[in-house]
């Protein structure tokens, strides 16, 4: 399964223990907390992000258990409302948005671009600490009552409810800064720090995905910043732009909120698509089928993603004209995802596919992104949305995209780059079992929710009419299976981290540019900057990736 010995002397030579790996180069706590190294910041982000993923998961499980009973059970109405609000906030702001861009992006973009570090290392560390500050403020708000407004903070409820909404609003504002700084860093890195010979058409597809995401992060997050600020000012100082008693228009809040939040869902899915592009090429050992199409559709999603926010307001009192305009534009953004999916399946054609754990997640990802994406298109046909809006159909749709696609891709990336980041390999058998459990549990959780949505069960319901109970019980059963799958992953990855067997530089034999250096890479990534002479993932020959022709 590895490149034969004869072919990778140069590679092995490059990983000669001359330079210590970034993990062992200074092991004091201060060397980690005060690091400038993009790899360490990436690992710290990964740890924080996984921690919040499990907190969000616990909230989700609590919600699902409560929904076993139609009447009051386990928690009262207010705590249930707080639970689903915090599940939304923790999962979106603290896990999904930073997960792939900040954890894997930080670690891999400089490696893939052939640079020693991101453009502004200090800014990168500042972004991590701003994230930690925002996260701790969110936790503080959580412990002191937490908000019960839903992660969407719709006014006038969010500006009049007596619960602790202000700290959570401020936390969202601060986390936005962290997201902006990360995006800014990656755009400048991609523009100005590419290795010699690495022009735009040889850029790895993961970097294209991260580049598209960064554009959205930089250009959309400020609007959330100002919207959240105005609601905070309205709660504290009493003069608000959205106060209906003063002529304010709650739908204006929804426009400004969704102007950020719809591109934000592309912040969550674009890097996942980048990970899938890399893993599909690596494990089917084939060049990306339609490289230009995939790269351009990343930019397409990033740009057209800004045009479609109105499909969240079809029944919110928006005018019919706007509903039509946003409906059509939403269809265009759907096409880019379709292009990518067809090209990924095309990549597998005549490849040499090794069915490893990441490939299992890729298969799950493909099924879920088509099903989730097309239910999104179904929602964008304005009239069907009238029946489905704010019901469990919408909940199932966005969980298909966020858990089915984005988390699956995160897991695929975690397994694919685990040897690169930590130099250890995980147990393949457990990996496949966990992948099967997760795909099965996921289906069992969210297919019933599609049907609940058809039946008309609104979302965010503490008590529901009796005839919805059967499907809710099925969904909770699926949720426990899903949770069990995630626990298994945590277990065998921690075991692999601690006691896994050392692996060599390129265990998968992949020709992505990040595999040019040792695993785990040295602090300065490369002995000297490589010259790139070919596209990534070109498996026609045996040379290691982007071989260094004598400079």
């Amino acid at each position, binding site marked *: 399964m590895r490149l034969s010995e004869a072919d990778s002397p140069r590679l092995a030579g490059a990983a000669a223990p001359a330079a210590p790996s970034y993990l062992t180069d200074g092991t004091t706590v201060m060397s980690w907390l005060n690091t400038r190294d993009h790899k360490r910041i990436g690992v710290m982000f990964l740890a924080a992000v996984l921690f919040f993923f499990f907190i969000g998961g616990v909230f989700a499980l609590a919600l699902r258990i409560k929904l076993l009973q139609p009447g009051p059970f386990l928690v009262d109405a207010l705590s249930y409302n707080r639970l689903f609000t915090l599940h939304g906030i923790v999962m979106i702001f603290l896990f999904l948005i930073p997960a792939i861009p900040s954890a894997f992006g930080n670690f891999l973009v400089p490696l893939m671009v052939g640079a020693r570090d991101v453009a502004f290392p200090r800014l990168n560390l500042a972004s991590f600490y701003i994230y930690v500050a925002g996260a701790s403020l969110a936790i503080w708000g959580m412990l002191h009552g937490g908000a019960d407004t839903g992660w969407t903070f719709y006014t006038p409820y969010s500006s009049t409810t007596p619960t602790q909404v202000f700290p959570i609003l401020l936390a969202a504002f601060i986390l936005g800064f962290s997201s902006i700084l990360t995006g800014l860093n990656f755009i400048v890195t991609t523009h100005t720090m590419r290795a010699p010979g690495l022009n735009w058409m040889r850029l790895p597809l993961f970097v294209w995905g991260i580049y598209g995401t960064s554009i959205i992060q930089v250009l959309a997050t400020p609007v959330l910043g100002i919207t959240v600020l105005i609601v905070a000012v309205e709660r504290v100082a009493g003069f608000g732009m959205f106060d209906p008693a003063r002529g304010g228009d709650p739908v204006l809040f929804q426009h400004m909120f969704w102007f950020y939040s719809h591109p934000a869902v592309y912040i969550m899915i674009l890097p996942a698509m980048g990970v899938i592009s890399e893993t599909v090429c690596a494990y089917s050992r084939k060049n990306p089928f339609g490289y230009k199409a995939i790269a351009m559709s990343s930019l397409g999603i990033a740009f057209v993603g800004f045009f479609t926010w109105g499909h969240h307001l079809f029944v919110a009192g928006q005018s019919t004209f706007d509903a039509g305009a946003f409906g059509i534009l939403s269809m265009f953004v759907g096409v880019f995802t379709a292009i990518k999916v067809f090209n990924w*399946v095309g990549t597998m054609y005549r490849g040499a596919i090794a069915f490893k754990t990441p490939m299992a997640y890729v298969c799950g990802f493909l099924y879920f992104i088509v099903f989730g994406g097309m239910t999104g298109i179904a929602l964008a046909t304005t009239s069907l949305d009238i029946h489905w809006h704010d019901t469990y159909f919408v909940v199932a749709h966005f969980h298909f995209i966020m858990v089915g696609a984005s988390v699956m891709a995160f897991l695929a990336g975690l397994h694919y780059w685990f040897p690169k980041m930590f130099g250890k390999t995980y147990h393949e058998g457990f990996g496949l079992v966990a992948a099967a459990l997760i795909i099965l549990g996921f289906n069992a959780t969210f297919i019933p929710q599609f049907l609940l949505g058809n039946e008309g069960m609104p979302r965010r319901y503490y008590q529901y009419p009796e005839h919805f109970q059967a499907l809710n019980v099925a969904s909770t059963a699926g949720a426990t299976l899903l949770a069990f799958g995630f626990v298994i992953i945590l277990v065998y990855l921690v075991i692999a981290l601690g006691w896994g067997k050392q692996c060599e530089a390129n265990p998968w034999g992949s020709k992505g540019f990040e595999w040019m250096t040792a695993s785990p890479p040295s602090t300065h990534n490369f002995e000297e900057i490589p010259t790139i002479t070919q596209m990534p993932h070109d498996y026609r020959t045996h040379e290691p990736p982007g071989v260094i022709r004598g400079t």
Partner: protein
Amino acid sequence: MNELLRRLLFLPDQASTFAYDLDQLHYFVIITTFFMSTAVGLTALVFFARYRRRSETQTTPHIEPPWWMEAGFVTVPLAFFLLWFFLGFHEFVRQQTPPSDAMDVYVMAKKWMWKFAYPDGPNSINVLRVPAGRNVRLLMTSRDVIHSFYVPEFRTKKDVLPGRYSQIWFNATTPGRYQILCAEYCGAGHSIMRGEVIVLKPQEYEDWLAQQKRGALASRQDGSPTEYDFAPPLGNLVEQGKRIAAEQGCLKCHSTDGTRHIGPTWLDLYRRREKLNDGTFVDADEAYLTESMMDPALKVVDGFQPVMPAFQGKISGPEVAALVEYIKSLQSDAVRTGPSEGPAYAPVRGR
């Protein structure tokens, strides 16, 4: 076929003119979705099997897609999506523009209850009566936060916004009782803010309307006088207090028969020693009752959530006094059961 697919997809029954057409588009879209995702999944599995890695040093050809295949990847999905859009938007416009001959009903959504007022007839809480086969337009507004009027069987939904009107219309075809659900999150009682649409045969509806007009209200459970035409004499303070309690929605959270609800019960409340959530005790006399109406969060009874909206500036002095008198009258030994009075709601003139 329609019935089979409807049951298969757990769709509620089609009780309005929209429902049938909407469900046809629904079947078309969902079946294509199902077909496409299984097609992609199966192709992937076929490729897994057929092109599995045979040896470690296997090399693979460099394949670039021909231009027509990439063009196909763009045009085929786009064609489907745009077809769905135009089918859907045609239906959407039909649902958003009420016919001019529609019968108007005014809806007032308030924290966790629905109030309906017919321009020429009675008004009622949580129960909307409409004649079958008639276009009905609902002009809706909210007194506090955003709610959403949603009847799954009619496939209609519209957010009810504070400070302005929003409108939906439907034509209920089959008589029956259908649940109204609030679809936009509006606080602790969001999930119990349920009403009922009773679709009557046209003749039955006319009879009911005439009966309301004749003022035989005392016996009707939901009918209630509007203060303009035939309100019963105000009666003593307790009577007035009961009417105000119903009107302001106090009965939604406070029960009068001793059972615990969102708020403490009013039975035997007067002069009861209440334990507050900060551990101190207070005697529920007139002062405490008035103060709790004006600023509920000040002294919250132990075990209850501070979700009561403040009535400061919304109920005048004499009304507060009437409420207090009504509470004082609720002693377990002297309780009288009577119909709950509906709200008074001034309809807006003109279309």
